C-alpha cells in the first residue's frame, strides 16, 4: 500500500518526514521539498506498509495504526473526527494512530470501498459516520478472531481495548500488531454491530487535531508548495469577462525574459506563461499584450444584474418550493400586511491558498497534485481534460489551504492540465495570482427576496409569501439535476420536510417560490450556500413581523414554532444563555435568528452596539447547535467561531461588484475580511439530541448575519436590507 501517502500525526521526530510525503511524492519516487535526508525518508516510507486489516485500517507489527481518511481536510477537522469514529469501534491506542489519504485512482480501482470523497455540504462526518465506524468495527472483529484462532478459544470470550486483546477467562493478552497479519487474511464479516452511543468513549470527547504539529513549523506541504524534479511554473490570465475569449496575444514581446520557457493558450479564454520560477512567469505575463473578445457580456454591471433579478420579484411564473393553504388569497384580504425586499450580493470564497495545481501529462498517463474537496470529481476532471481514461489518471490529494466550497469545482485543474498537455512529460505547477483568484471565482450567487406577511384582526400571522428571485447554482454547475427547470437547492432551509433543512414555523398559509434569473457571473457553493441569504431573508423578516405587531421577537417566534421542537430548543438555549429576559448591558442590543440546514438545528443571539456616528461593534455571539451527535466538541467550537468570522466577513464587507462584465474586486484591499480586532466573543452551546447526524462546518454561518442585523435594528431602529454593511449607513439620523 505504499501508493497511499501518509499524512501527519506524529511524533515530533517523524512529522517532517511524514508530512513531506503528503503530496504522494515519495510513494512515486520523487524528491520532495525538503533538502537532504532523502534516504532516511524513503526508509521510513517503506515501513509505512503493513497488513491491511480492512480497507480502512493498516496495523503494523509495532502496533502503529494507519487510518485511511477519504474526505478532504481543509481546516474543518474532519480528519480528526473521522478517526475518532473509527477508533471508537476499533478500540485502538489513540497515541499510535496516523492517517493517510487513499487516492481517487485507488478508490476507483478497488470499487470505491471508502464511499464518496466529496467533502462539502458539511457531509464529512454526517454522511460517512456509518461506513467509517463499520470499517473500525469490522477490523476489530477480525483482530479478535485472529487472536481467538491462535488461542483456540471462542472469540466471544475475547475483548479489545487500547490495541490490546484480552481472553477474559484465562487472562491471556496480545496486541493488534501481533495478530494483524493473520487478521488481514480472514474474510471480513458481513454485518458488524456498532456500539450504542451510550458506550462511546471517544466520540463526544474533545480531541486535539491530528494535523497540527507540521502546521506550526512551516513543514506542512500544501499543494502550492509541491516540488517535483524538472517542474516548471505557470501563471495564467483568463478573460476578465466571463464567457469572453482570447482574441490574440503577442508572445514575441516577452520571449527572452528571464526564466520564461513558453507562452501557451489555455482553452479559448486564457493564456499562461510557463517559466522556471513562478515569479518570472507572473512578471512576464504582466507584460504580455493580450487582446480579449469579451463577447456578449461586456456591458453588464451590478446595476444591470440587479434590474434583471428584480423582474423576478413580481413575475407570474415561479417555481414553488413550499406551499400550504392560500398565501396570496389570504394576503389579499388581510387586515394588515407587511412587505419588504432584501438583496444579497456576489461574494468570493477567498481561500487563503489561491487556486493552484500541479499536472504531469504523457501520452498514456496524467497525474495531478491538487487541493480538492472532491477527489472523485477531480479524477473525472483529469480524465476529461487529458482525454485519457480514468484508469490512466491519478489525483494526489493535498491538504487544503481553505476550501469553503470553491475547491469542489475544478476549473483551475482543467487549466493546469491544458498547459501540461502542451509540454508533455514536464510537471507544470499552475498558481493563480490573488487577483486571478478574486476575478475568476465561482461566486456566492446573487438573489433578491420580496416577503409579504399578513395578520388577521387579532394580530395573528396568517400568511407569508416569500418570493426569491435570482441565480441558481445548479443551473450553472449541474443543469441535469434541475427538476423540470426548478432548482430545489434554492429552498435550502425553507423546505416543508426532509432532513436537510426544514422551515421551522407553522404558518397556516405559506408560499415560498423562486423566479430564476441567471446572470453571466458563474455561481457556486459557498460555505452555507443558499441558506445564507434564505436565513437573512426569513429571520430578519420574522423580526420585522414581530415588531409590526409590537411583539417580542423571541415570543413571536416561539408561538409559531410549537411543532418544531428541535428548532425551538436551540433558540431557547441561546435565549436562556444570553439572558434574553433581562436587559443587555448599557448601550448593547440583541438580535436573534434560528435556521436548520445540512441536518443541524442552529440559533444565535448577537449583542452589538452602534455608535452615534454609525460604527458597529459586535461584542458577543451566543450560538447553539444540535447536530444530533457531536463527535469532537473542541473542533465544533472552533468551527462555530470560524463560521461567524466567515459569515460576518461577508455581512460587513463581502461584495463582488460587476463593471463592464468583470468583477471589480481584485485583492484583500478591495475585498476586506474580518481580522482579529473585529472578532466578537463567540460562546458555543452544543446540544446534541441524538438519533441523527447533522453537519457542523456550515450550519451556524446561517444565523451569523441575521442575528447581527436584528441586533442592529434593535440598536438603531434602522432595518438594513441590502449588503454588505460597508455600503450602508447604520444610523439614518
Amino acid at each position, binding site marked *: 500500500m505504499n501508493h497511499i501517502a501518509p499524512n501527519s500525526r506524529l511524533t515530533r521526530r517523524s512529522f517532517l518526514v511524514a508530512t513531506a510525503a503528503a503530496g504522494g511524492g515519495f510513494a512515486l519516487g520523487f524528491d520532495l*521539498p525538503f*533538502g537532504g535526508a532523502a534516504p532516511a525518508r524513503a526508509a521510513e516510507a517503506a515501513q509505512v506498509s503493513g497488513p491491511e486489516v480492512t480497507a480502512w485500517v493498516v496495523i503494523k507489527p509495532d502496533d502503529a495504526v494507519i487510518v485511511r481518511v477519504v474526505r478532504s481536510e*481543509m*481546516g*474543518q*477537522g474532519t480528519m480528526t473526527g473521522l478517526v475518532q469514529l473509527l477508533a471508537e469501534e476499533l478500540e485502538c491506542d489513540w497515541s499510535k494512530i496516523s492517517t493517510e489519504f487513499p487516492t481517487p485512482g485507488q478508490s476507483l480501482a478497488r470499487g470505491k470501498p471508502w464511499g464518496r470523497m466529496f467533502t462539502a455540504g458539511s457531509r464529512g462526518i454526517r454522511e460517512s459516520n456509518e461506513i467509517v465506524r463499520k470499517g473500525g468495527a469490522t477490523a476489530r472483529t477480525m483482530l479478535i478472531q485472529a487472536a481467538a484462532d491462535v488461542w483456540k478459544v471462542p472469540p466471544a470470550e475475547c475483548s479489545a481495548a487500547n490495541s490490546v486483546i484480552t481472553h477474559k477467562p484465562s487472562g491471556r493478552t496480545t496486541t493488534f500488531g501481533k495478530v494483524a497479519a493473520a487478521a488481514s487474511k480472514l474474510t471480513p464479516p458481513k454485518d458488524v454491530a456498532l456500539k450504542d452511543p451510550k458506550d462511546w468513549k471517544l466520540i463526544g470527547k474533545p480531541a*486535539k*487535531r491530528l*494535523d*497540527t*504539529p507540521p*502546521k*506550526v*513549523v*512551516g*513543514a*506542512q*506541504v*500544501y499543494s*502550492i*508548495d509541491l*516540488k517535483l524534479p524538472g517542474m516548471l*511554473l505557470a501563471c495564467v490570465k483568463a478573460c476578465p469577462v466571463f464567457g469572453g475569449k482570447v482574441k490574440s496575444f503577442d508572445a514575441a514581446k516577452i520571449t527572452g525574459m528571464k526564466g520564461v520557457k513558453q507562452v501557451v493558450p489555455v482553452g479559448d479564454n486564457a493564456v499562461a506563461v510557463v517559466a522556471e*520560477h*513562478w*515569479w518570472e512567469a507572473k512578471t512576464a505575463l504582466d507584460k504580455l499584450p493580450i487582446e480579449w473578445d469579451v463577447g456578449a457580456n461586456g456591458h453588464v454591471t451590478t446595476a444591470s444584474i440587479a434590474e434583471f433579478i428584480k423582474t423576478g420579484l413580481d413575475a407570474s411564473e415561479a417555481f414553488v418550493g413550499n406551499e400550504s393553504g392560500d398565501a396570496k388569497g389570504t394576503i389579499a384580504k388581510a387586515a394588515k400586511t407587511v412587505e419588504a425586499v432584501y438583496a444579497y450580493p456576489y461574494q468570493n470564497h*477567498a*481561500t*487563503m*491558498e*489561491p487556486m493552484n495545481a500541479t499536472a504531469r501529462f504523457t501520452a498514456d498517463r496524467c497525474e495531478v497534485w491538487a487541493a480538492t474537496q472532491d477527489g472523485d470529481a477531480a479524477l473525472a476532471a483529469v480524465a476529461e481534460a487529458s482525454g485519457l481514461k480514468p484508469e490512466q489518471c491519478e489525483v494526489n490529494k493535498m*491538504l*487544503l*489551504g*481553505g476550501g*469553503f466550497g470553491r475547491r469542489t469545482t475544478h476549473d483551475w485543474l482543467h487549466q493546469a492540465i491544458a498547459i501540461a498537455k502542451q509540454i508533455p512529460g514536464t510537471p507544470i505547477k499552475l*498558481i493563480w*495570482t*490573488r*487577483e486571478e483568484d478574486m476575478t475568476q471565482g465561482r461566486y456566492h450567487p446573487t438573489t433578491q427576496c420580496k416577503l409579504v406577511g399578513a395578520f388577521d384582526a387579532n394580530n395573528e400571522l396568517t400568511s407569508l409569501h416569500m418570493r426569491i428571485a435570482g441565480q441558481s447554482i445548479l443551473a450553472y454547475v449541474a443543469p441535469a439535476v434541475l427538476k423540470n427547470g426548478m432548482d430545489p437547492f434554492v429552498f435550502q432551509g425553507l423546505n416543508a420536510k426532509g432532513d436537510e433543512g426544514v422551515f421551522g414555523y407553522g404558518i397556516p398559509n405559506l408560499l415560498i417560490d423562486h423566479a430564476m434569473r441567471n446572470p453571466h457571473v458563474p455561481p457556486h457553493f459557498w460555505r452555507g450556500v443558499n441558506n445564507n441569504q434564505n436565513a437573512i431573508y426569513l429571520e430578519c423578516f420574522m423580526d420585522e413581523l414581530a415588531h409590526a405587531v409590537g411583539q417580542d421577537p423571541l415570543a413571536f417566534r416561539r408561538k409559531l414554532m410549537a411543532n418544531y421542537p428541535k428548532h425551538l430548543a436551540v433558540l431557547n438555549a441561546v435565549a436562556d444563555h444570553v439572558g434574553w429576559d433581562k436587559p443587555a448591558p448599557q448601550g448593547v442590543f440583541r438580535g436573534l435568528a434560528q435556521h436548520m440546514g445540512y441536518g443541524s438545528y442552529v440559533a444565535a443571539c448577537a449583542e452589538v452596539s452602534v455608535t452615534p456616528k454609525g460604527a458597529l461593534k459586535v461584542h458577543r455571539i451566543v450560538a447553539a447547535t444540535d447536530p444530533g451527535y457531536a463527535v469532537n466538541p*473542541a473542533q465544533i467550537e*472552533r*468551527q462555530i*467561531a*470560524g*463560521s*461567524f*468570522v*466567515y459569515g460576518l*466577513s461577508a455581512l460587513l464587507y463581502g461584495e463582488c461588484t460587476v463593471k463592464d462584465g468583470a468583477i471589480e474586486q481584485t*485583492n*484583500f*484591499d478591495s475585498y476586506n*475580511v*474580518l*481580522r*482579529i*480586532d473585529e*472578532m466578537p466573543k*463567540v460562546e458555543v452551546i452544543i446540544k446534541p439530541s441524538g438519533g441523527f447526524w447533522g453537519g457542523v462546518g456550515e450550519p451556524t454561518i446561517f444565523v451569523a448575519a441575521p442575528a447581527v442585523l436584528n441586533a442592529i435594528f434593535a440598536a438603531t431602529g434602522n432595518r438594513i436590507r441590502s449588503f454588505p454593511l460597508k455600503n450602508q449607513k447604520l444610523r439614518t439620523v
Partner: protein
Amino acid sequence: MARLTINGTAHDVDVAPDTPLLWAIREWIGLTGTKYGCGIAQCGACTVHVDGEAIRSCSLPVSAVADKQIVTIEGLAVGGTLNKVQQAWIDSDVPQCGYCQSGMIMAVAALLKDKPKPTDADIDDTITNICRCGTYHQVREAIHAAASKA
C-alpha cells in the same frame, strides 16, 4: 544575483533585484513554509523576520535585504526546540487549515519580542494577519499563553 542570509545561512541567488523576498525564499531558496496569500502586504501569510522585525515579504524586494538577517518559520525553532509561540500554538490547537499560520506565528513572535506581555489592544493593533478559517479566539489565547512563559 542577490545574497540572502536566511536562518543563518548565506545564499547567492540568481534573481532579478526587484524579485519579492517571498518568492526568492520559496522558489530559489526552497523554503515553502512562508506563504503567498495576496502579494500586496494585506494578508500577512508571507510574514518573516528581517533583522528581528516582522515584515511582509511579498512586497519587499530582495535588493532591500542584502546584509540583513532573515528568519523564516523554518528557522524559528532553535536547536530543535520550538519557539514558545509555536509551542503555545500546539497547546491551544490553533491552526485549522493552517495556511496563514506561519505568518501569524512570525507576526506574534515579533510582537512578543517587542512587547513581552501584550494586552488585547496590543494584539488588535499588531496582529492584522488574515485567517479565513477564523482561528482568532485560539490565536489570542495562545498569544497570552506564550506571553505568560518566560
